[in-house]
């Protein structure tokens, strides 16, 4: 059974679109990443799943329970870290967690051990009696995550869990999240792309309130690299370079990206047919024509480039 099933979810803020017609499902134990620029609808989707507000249309089920019909039991099954980590800053860490253990309905006899457990897990022992107001950003973030973990939620929803942390803290939080996968279903949103490939099993890419891709990070990379690219940096008469290399068999297009130093040469982006390994051919051609070869390499698309590509392609479709 899927832990999360989302069907045609839409949310409008008056006439403004939050999200529109979003459908996806997350398997049990999976870590799902939400990727998208700011304002793409990640937080809106999460707020609907956590029953903060209902959708305008569509519905979703968390572990088989409908968010509209039985929001109370959905709220019992989830752990949620909202964006910007809201905290009662005038409370000490321990009392804060204690309070949330209480309103999550954890029985009094298990409360203490549960709070101690999340304090251990999020490494908050050293600050457990300090006021949250006096904690650093990293510790606050961990208090927020500890709160979300208190009731051993079946589904954990984390809205930008690593924003504003230093690199060491980011690594800590990521490994904490990775450790949760398998037993708990996790949804996390981010606009930091390497984070997704590092922590998530699958990725949802959202843009302007619409879901535009769902896949594993690896497949996403593969899918978009069907036309392999080669980057060439060479010095020589531009026209000649474009003409000569353009005629090599297997090359579908060559573009000049930016001019190099002086009149001649520059960066060229070459698209080749699938599975064609033409680096040698191109290099030979450059050498035979006595142009200066500065750099030649295959272009691996980073997730960043994929993301930008998907987003711009989608925009192209909309404008047509």
């Amino acid at each position, binding site marked *: 059974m899927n832990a999360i099933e989302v069907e045609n979810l839409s949310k409008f803020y008056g006439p403004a679109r939050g999200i529109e017609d979003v459908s996806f499902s997350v398997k049990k134990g999976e870590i799902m990443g939400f990727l998208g620029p700011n304002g793409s609808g990640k937080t809106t989707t999460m707020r609907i799943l956590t029953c903060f507000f209902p959708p305008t249309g569509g519905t979703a089920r968390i572990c088989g329970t409908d968010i509209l019909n039985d929001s109370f039991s959905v709220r019992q099954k989830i752990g949620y870290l909202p964006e910007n980590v809201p905290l009662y800053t005038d409370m000490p860490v321990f009392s804060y967690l204690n*309070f949330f253990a209480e309103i999550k309905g954890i029985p009094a006899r298990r409360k203490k051990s549960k709070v101690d457990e999340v304090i251990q897990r999020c490494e908050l022992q050293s600050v457990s009696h300090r006021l949250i107001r006096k904690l650093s950003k990293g510790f606050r973030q961990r208090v927020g995550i500890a709160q979300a973990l208190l009731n051993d939620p079946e589904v954990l929803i984390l809205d930008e869990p690593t924003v504003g942390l230093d690199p060491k803290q980011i690594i800590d939080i990521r490994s904490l999240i990775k450790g949760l996968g398998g037993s708990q279903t996790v949804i996390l949103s981010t606009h930091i792309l390497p984070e997704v490939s590092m922590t998530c099993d699958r990725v949802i890419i959202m843009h302007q309130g619409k879901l535009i891709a769902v896949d594993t990070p690896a497949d996403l990379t593969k899918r978009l690299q069907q036309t392999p690219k080669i980057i060439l940096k060479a010095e020589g008469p531009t026209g000649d370079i474009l003409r000569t290399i353009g005629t090599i068999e297997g090359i579908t297009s060559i573009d000049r990206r930016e001019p190099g130093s002086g009149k001649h040469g520059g960066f060229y982006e070459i698209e080749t047919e699938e599975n064609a390994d033409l680096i040698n051919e191109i290099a030979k051609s450059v050498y035979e024509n006595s142009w200066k070869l500065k750099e030649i390499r295959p272009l691996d698309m980073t997730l960043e480039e994929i993301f930008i590509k998907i987003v711009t392609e989608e925009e192209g479709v909309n404008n047509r």
Partner: protein
Amino acid sequence: MSWYFIMKREVNSYFTSLTAYIVLFIFLVISGYFFYTNLTMFVMMVGSDVKLGLWQYTFQDMRRFMLLLLPLLTMRLFSEEKKLGTIELLYTHPIRDMAIIMGKYLACLLVLVVMLALTFLYPILLNIVFSIELGPLVTGYFGLFLLGTAFIACGVFVSSLTENQIVAAMITVGILILFWSIDWNEGIAGTKVMTILHQFSLFEHFYNFPRGVIDISDVVYYLSVSFFFLFLTLCSLESRQWRGKK
């Protein structure tokens, strides 16, 4: 049970953040001053009824001051949560809106009870030198408490509308003063309208209590005002369910 946890947290918050201490301190000082001036006045005017009159005057002074002071207690209840964003945590936890409201409302009532209880020191001190009648004193305090429940319910509601605490306090004071002064202008309203307006005046229903009279209609009035505002608060919290729908 969850209302109890909310209440506990709110009471803790009042007493760790100094708000409650400051409000209690100011109330004690000012009501002590009222008590003192009223007492000296009655001592100088020999022959007047100290047993009844003194408390009537003191309670009338205290309730006016409560009108200004209680909004300072209620202003943070929802506004602060909205500002901090913690309201999102409450909404996404398995807890009913009504439990959130009741927890906060009762926490504030508890501070009110402490506030009123502390002023009980004055009659005790007076009783040492001059024996006083307990009846009107107790009913007077009961009236003040009922008045306070209505003030606080109004404050809770206004606080649920805004994330700005100062705005919440000012609007609450505004509404309370309106309810207080609603039956002041007899000349314009006319007698018929006036009898209706009298029924809506927050303070009109208070006069009986310090005289030692508990009129059930007064009690019902204050309880309905509280219910009314708490109901509005519930509507205000639940508005997130239908806001933004097409």
